[in-house]
């Protein structure tokens, strides 16, 4: 199996309570190909390590939206 994991950084402006942290992390990790998901409440950064062939950036954004938060990919 060849894994071509990449790191994608997303940002959300809507994290208002740290209770969303485990919620979003669990939702992201439930996606195929996502090996690591970290939500930083303080800065609103969401760091994801994933295989883009299995789940691309749009899939990440989509799964975060399902938990109720808008996020978008960011260069840094």
């Amino acid at each position, binding site marked *: 199996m060849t894994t071509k994991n990449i790191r994608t950084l997303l940002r959300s402006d809507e994290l208002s309570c740290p209770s969303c942290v485990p919620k979003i992390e669990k939702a992201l990790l439930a996606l195929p190909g996502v090996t690591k998901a970290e939500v*930083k409440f303080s800065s609103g950064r969401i760091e994801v390590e994933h295989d883009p062939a299995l789940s691309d950036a749009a899939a990440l954004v989509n799964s975060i939206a399902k938990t109720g938060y808008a996020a978008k990919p960011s260069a840094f």
Partner: protein
Amino acid sequence: MFSRSIAIYANPASRRKWLTVASGMFITAALVAFYGFGQAAPWAPLMTIAAILAGYDIALRAWASLRLRHLSIELLVIVAAIGALFIDNHWESAAVTFLFMLGAWLEARTMSRTRGALKALLDATPVTATVLRDGQPVEIAAHEVVLGETVLVRAGQRLPVDGAVIEGTAAVNEAAITGEPIPAEKAPGSRVFAGTLAENGLLYLRAIGVGADTTLARIISRVEEAQEAKAPAQRMIESFGRWYTPGVFVMAVVSYLVTRDIELALTLLVVSCPGALVISTPVSVVAGIGRAARAGILIKGGEHLENAGRITALALDKTGTLTEGQPRLAEIVALAGRSRQDVLLWAAIAETGSNHPLGRPIIEAARAEGHLPTAEALEEIAGMGLIARHGGAQIAVGSHRLFDHLGIAFSAEVKDGIARLHELGHTVVIVAHNGEVVGLLGLADMPRASARPMIDRLHALGVNRVVMLTGDQRPAAEAIAATVGVDEVHAAMMPDHKLDQIRVMRAEGFRVAMVGDGINDAPALAAADISIAMGASGSDIAIETADIALMTDDLGKIAEAMEISRATLTNMRQNLVIAVLTVLGLLAGVYTGSIHMAGGMLVHQLSVLIVILNGMRLLRVPAADKARAAIAQTTERVAA
């Protein structure tokens, strides 16, 4: 219209906003019908619709989390709301769901304002860049610029990359990096940063840093890491928060089993989110560090914020920190009946033959007074000075060693003059014309204009021991110390001595901050409670290693950093008190029966908002700063 509705629905933020508004309208309608027109019939259906509108989104999210086996706050709220509908408490159900949605919306907005200090930095980087390819300007994405490529920046544009100016000049506003509003003049050879703004002119840059590899990106990621770094108090609260929610859930069940009071149990569910408590410290830290970053002060985490706020002593280097780091011509002493102009001119003629740092200010001063002729012959005697020939005369310029070497003796007048300049802390350059000493030049590294006000401000902040540590000799050190108001001088120090002095001060019970420029002071910086690096925008090492990095050489930022740190600490404590009182008050209120569901939700959401709003105040710290700046400006204008 239809596709627009879909778009609103697909975006969780706008969907929630409209559901909240709609829910609020139904609640208002029910209230108006009942209290305005005495109509009781529409009450239950209208309130139920309001509850369903607001609760619908909460339920969706609760379900999404539940499928991932996560016990979310939304689940507790929705269980409470549905329970309230079942016991015919329509008003409570509508109020709880509506307030939960409204609160979350307000909190998200205020929280994003709190994070906003950094957003301004993020927004500073342009998305596109104009590069020259085959001599033609091409617009491409900023992160696709190739290193070494030529980037074109026009007036009014932000720089897309870090670079070096190849051609052109411009006034560049570097506030995004340094917090300094006055633009810097850039010319070929100048280093420029992504995110800064070309206010005029036209620049051709060679790209030397792109995308995540720019100073701005590094600053942003450092600031964010600092904001994310959890202070011990925060970690403790978070672990408390983790068992608080399930704990309250259990309490609700137990309370119901014991008292058979379903309303009490549901109310407990409503107040089960420790919201204010878990965000109390991060909100303050985010706002404090963000506020500092906006002023070009990089505080590397909550821990350093805490340390910086408790500093009682400050140690700093002299050269380059308290002073400009470059000698200036401070005094010209004319002897033997010569004029000051002649002395300066002769000295400058000889100095044109040298690259010595003391030569530059002499040449500049002479050029400012008029034409500077060239010498007919020049000889540099290493470590001593220069001998030049001009207009048939011999000019000797240098230290007393040169004159020992030439066998020129000093008169009493000359000796007195030298002694006086030494007392002022000046470096003395002696000038002789045809074997006769005709004048003395005193050169000094002048104190920065901002040094004295900074030290006064530190004293006012309770930093009572401001210590100068310098490798320089005592007279020069003391002259500067007296001008700027330093409390204590340690001169002629080797780097090890500086380290020892920091250790001694710490042993005496002081919390010591050390200000330095990095390499020379590295051991002392490491030994201090907190290390502060100045002028860090040009040095990545300083940004990486110092606890606090100041992007400019402005000493005022030291006091500002401390003021922000103190304000943040106070703010954090206030937030903790508010949060703890809320949690205790809510629990007490629920058990004594004085708080019901709607009230519980209201108090809870208000406490979260208050905590965030309190944190947001930090973005305006220190409050007096603007007033001070305005006063300074008026004074300058009056002086001009």
